[in-house]
């Protein structure tokens, strides 16, 4: 019985509540009329014709004194002026404050930059100038405190300005030649100087120009010319049989030692072929292994046989294991010397223990010799 009551209650709870019959009637009405419903306001419940009715009071016209009004207007204007002045003053104060703040920031940045510059300057030589060895170059002492780059730049500018002139007098040409000479010397000094900073080195360059091609009659190979040249008879095709004893060779000694030799051996007539043993061929080549010896006949300009010559065809043996091992060491055991991280890692990877300073000294000597040779090559003393 209890279960039955409980089930009924549960069903009542689960079942949706039936909507009333009038539900949505108002909305349907609105839809039919097409507008909103007008509900008239409730009428005043107070009874009409009450006994405590009051007549409206009479107000006399108010008198305004023009002088007082003017004074009031003046006072208002004065207050406005004062407010404007105060506003301007505060704006000026704010502007001043902002400017002061900006100036302080700029000043601080300037000081920081100056501090950094001082750090850099301390690392640079005392004077940023060339210190070429006066013993090596007599002109080195004359180099102004750098300066050197400025001088080089100004020389460049002067030279360029002179070059822009259409016709130079003899005097101007001499002047230009002097400038060129000066510039070359100065360039050489700056390159030689050990203390020239990297930034300066990177912009140093010689004004090596390009010769005027129009005046030099430069040969030109056109497509037609190339075609004609290719159609000329091949160099080695014109074989003239001089003797029946000789075996003709197409293309001369080109690709002779390759597969072509096999064909020659295979096709060689008995009278020109001679079987040989390895021992007979063994001593022909000093550091290689001969596999054939071929006697060639050459002709002279009169088409006769001029001479004969022996050629050896051989194979190259790989270096003996001990030498090959040495070679591998040569490649891997190289004194890794540069100070950059790549080489440090590479050096560590192969476990090389090298004398870095000695290597740098050796390489520097090589580079210095090269630099000196370059100066001589360029005609700079």
């Amino acid at each position, binding site marked *: 019985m209890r279960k039955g009551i409980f089930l009924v209650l549960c069903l009542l709870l689960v079942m949706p509540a039936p909507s009333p019959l009038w539900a949505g009637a108002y909305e349907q009405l609105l839809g039919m009329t097409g507008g909103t419903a007008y509900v008239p306001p409730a009428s005043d419940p107070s009874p009409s014709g009450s006994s405590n009715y009051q007549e409206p009071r009479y107000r006399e016209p108010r008198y305004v004194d023009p002088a007082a009004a003017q004074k009031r207007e003046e006072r208002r204007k004065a207050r406005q002026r004062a407010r404007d002045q105060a506003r301007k003053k505060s704006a000026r104060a704010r502007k001043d404050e902002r400017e002061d703040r900006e100036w302080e920031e700029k000043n601080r940045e300037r000081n920081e930059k100056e501090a950094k510059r001082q750090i850099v300057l301390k690392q640079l030589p005392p004077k940023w100038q060339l210190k070429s060895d006066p013993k090596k170059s007599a002109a080195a002492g004359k180099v102004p405190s750098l300066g050197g780059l400025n001088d080089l730049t100004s020389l460049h500018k002067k030279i360029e300005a002179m070059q822009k002139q259409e016709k130079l007098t003899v005097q101007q040409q001499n002047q*230009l030649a002097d400038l060129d*000479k000066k510039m070359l010397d100065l360039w050489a000094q700056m390159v030689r100087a*050990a203390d*020239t900073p990297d930034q300066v080195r990177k912009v140093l360059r*010689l004004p*090596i*120009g*390009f*010769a005027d091609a129009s005046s030099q009659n*430069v040969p*030109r190979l*056109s497509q037609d010319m*190339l075609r004609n*040249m290719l159609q000329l008879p*091949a*160099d*080695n095709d014109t074989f003239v*049989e001089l*003797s029946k004893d000789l*075996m*003709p060779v197409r*293309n*001369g000694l*080109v*690709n002779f*030692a*390759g597969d072509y030799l096999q064909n020659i051996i295979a096709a060689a007539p008995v009278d*020109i072929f001679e*079987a040989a043993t390895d021992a007979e061929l063994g001593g022909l080549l000093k*550091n*290689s292994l001969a596999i054939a*010896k071929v*006697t060639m*006949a*050459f*002709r*002279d300009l009169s088409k006769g046989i001029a001479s004969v*010559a*022996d*050629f050896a065809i*051989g*194979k*190259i*043996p790989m270096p*003996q294991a001990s*030498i090959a091992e040495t*070679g*591998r060491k040569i*490649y891997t055991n*190289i*004194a890794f*010397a*540069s*100070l*950059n991280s790549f080489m440090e890692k590479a050096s560590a990877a192969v476990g090389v223990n090298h004398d870095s300073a000695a290597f740098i000294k*050796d390489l520097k000597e*090589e*580079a210095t010799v090269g*630099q000196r040779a370059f100066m001589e*090559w360029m005609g700079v003393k």
Partner: protein
Amino acid sequence: MRRLLYITLLMVLSVIPLFAQSENVEIMSETTLLLPLSDGINTRWVLPPASSDFIRHFKDMRLSFSVDHAGHAWLGFADGTVLCPEKGYMFKLPETFWDFVCLDNGVILFATTSRLSLLRVSDLLQKTSSDTVSLQPIAMLPPNCSRMVKGAENCLYFICNDEAARENTIWLFKPQSYQGIRGIPEYQKVFVSDSPINAVAGDGVNTWVASGRLILKIDAQKQLHRYYLHPHQAIVDLAYTKSSGLFYTTAFATGYAGVNGAIELLNTRAPVIACAGNSLYVLFAHSFGVMAIEGIDQLLNYDLPLAGIKKVMAPRFDQ
């Protein structure tokens, strides 16, 4: 006494591998040599092949190869690494370069993006430089250059390509013999071509240019001549010495190009060549081994028109 025993034992142990090796000689694959049988001409290993780690690291990089006046081989790689194994030098430059040459007068020059530069080594104690080894710019290069080539008599050639004008040019720089009207050395344009230029060599007076299979000669009078036409392959590089003449490489060979014909001295894959003194240096690009063919000046004696083969001595195939 004990020390003597140790030394003897060590000597015996060190000799055993040599005996073992003499039995098995390893031959370089895909490589054949053709040399005149003459006393002065022979081969010599300058640098044995490199280790596999080295080859793996550098094999795909652009390589520059040059030999200095003392006959030392220098290698430069696209990442700025330069090495001269014989002298024990290896360093990495802070800036990359696309070519470098060692001239016979001792000058080592690098071509960076647009500048010609010298090698510079600063003192360890000198604090003005952040890098110990760096490049000192010298001058601007001719525009749009792709190769810088060492010529004989201390001259430099540049191969440049102006794609906009579809013009390929060769510039020469020979400061000791040519200076402009101002008395300063200048680059000279020595050749212009509509076709691509693969290689150049010369001494500043005579110049040889390779385009496709053809080698052209520009003589002192600036006249063009056909010098040599390779029957099979395109010429990829040239090298010239005053004493020996002109050498060329293709993708599969290196040879001597005389006036009367060519002698292909070496058949191998992708050789790289350089000349110094009386030797031709061949770099085997797949192993970085360098071999010198010495006595190349004697090749001039064999620059004659070939008549034919007189005799062949070789083992039979069945032997």
